[in-house]
């Protein structure tokens, strides 16, 4: 059994919260740069220029990229031969508490009806995958409210199939318009069950924008759907233009013979996430 000190996990979580909120991943920066270079609509181009300047400014000053520093979501991959001294979940929550306080990030978590803010951005939402071995990997995502509010889960019928998936996604993005801060990234969870689809959709947002789905059929569907979404013409910040979406990322699971679960988790252009192996 490998023992990991609770303090090490807390420090890792703290650092991830701060780092992700100040610096966009390289793949996201490259995708935004490409969008800027090819945009011809002047107002949309100006929005992308501001987004680029904002990214450089945040990195240089340590100011958060966006005032919505997100609800903290963690995907933890835990080797079953690992034990965290003093409790893994509480170690992560303490890291979030410190990261949001010390990084001057916004406390954006409240009780659902009384709306009382917890003041330190906890509790974070933590998902666990148990795997063989003695590794421990933390992936952090700062999930903003604007794009999350536009996300949806449904259960289609097998007869609706891929056409049903594309119709649902296109209608959703069209209805959301500029609310989720386009150019967006679409995480699609396909198959599984009602709740697994949602989890897969969020996890899909951790995939690098420039990766390619290992299944050629899925890769082709992602590319086709990306083209269809961009044909909507919503454009950067809804101003019209070539880039409504930076990437469509799917994760699939086997499902019941009666069902085709589908979840669409929308992410804003400020796709802030970071990972680290302990």
């Amino acid at each position: 059994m490998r023992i990991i000190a609770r303090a090490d996990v807390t420090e890792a979580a703290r650092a991830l919260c701060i780092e992700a909120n100040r610096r966009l991943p390289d793949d996201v920066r490259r995708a935004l740069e490409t969008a800027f270079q090819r945009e011809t609509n002047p107002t949309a181009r100006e929005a992308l220029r501001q987004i680029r300047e904002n990214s450089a400014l945040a990195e240089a000053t340590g100011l958060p990229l966006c005032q919505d520093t997100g609800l903290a979501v963690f995907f933890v991959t835990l080797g079953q031969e690992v034990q965290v001294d003093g409790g893994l979940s509480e170690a992560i929550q303490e890291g979030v508490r410190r990261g949001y306080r010390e990084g001057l990030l916004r406390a954006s978590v409240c009780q659902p009806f009384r709306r009382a803010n917890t003041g330190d951005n906890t509790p974070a939402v933590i998902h666990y995958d148990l795997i063989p071995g003695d590794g421990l990997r933390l992936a952090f995502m700062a999930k903003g409210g604007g794009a999350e509010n536009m996300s949806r889960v449904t259960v289609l019928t097998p007869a609706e199939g891929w056409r049903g998936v594309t119709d649902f996604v296109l209608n959703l993005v069209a209805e959301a318009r500029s609310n989720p801060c386009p150019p967006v990234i679409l995480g699609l969870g396909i198959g599984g069950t009602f709740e697994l689809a949602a989890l897969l959709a969020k996890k899909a947002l951790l995939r690098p924008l420039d990766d390619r789905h290992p299944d050629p059929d899925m890769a082709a569907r992602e590319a086709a759907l990306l083209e269809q979404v961009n044909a909507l013409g919503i454009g950067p910040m809804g101003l019209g233009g070539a880039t409504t979406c930076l990437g469509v990322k799917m994760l699939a699971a086997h499902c019941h013979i009666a069902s085709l679960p589908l979840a669409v988790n929308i992410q804003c252009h400020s796709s802030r996430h970071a990972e680290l192996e302990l």
Partner: protein
Amino acid sequence: MTVRRLVTPLTDDLIAVLRAGDLVTLSGAVYTARDAAHARMADLLERGLPLPFDLNGAVLYYVGPTPPPPGRTIGSAGPTTSCRMDSHTPRLHSLGLKATIGKGPRGPEVLKALQEHTAVYLGATGGAGALLSTHILKADVIAFADLGTEAIRLLEVRDMPLLVINDCRGGELYARPRTAESAGPAR
């Protein structure tokens, strides 16, 4: 692109010439309010009590900033999604509010109020909170301090870069999605 310079307080004459698509820079006094502050203001109005600031010619910015680093007046301060405030906005326009700043489309009740009360909806770039904060010279909490980031702040802004999204004559800048012309703002 020509840029119009706006200075608060905004008057009907200033608003009347603005058209959807105009680039503007805004300087002067701007009040912040988002979900929780709007709920408090609605409660005050229902009880016949005065609001914590004068709405006449005022500008409201939908923002919940991050805490200020040492030596700065405010942290990141970009726009939040405006449609969550739609149910409150027409009444505030009827009481003299001249402009709101946010991102995302507004509902029909707001678009009607803009025309009835000669007001505009201005868009700031979502996800550019660090950059927008450099246009804020001063920020003071003036009401509902217990709401933290959602408190009402009085900002002094200089040359804040904005776009006229909806003008007072029914014009709208946002693109209509090509395959879903009928799609209204999502709630």
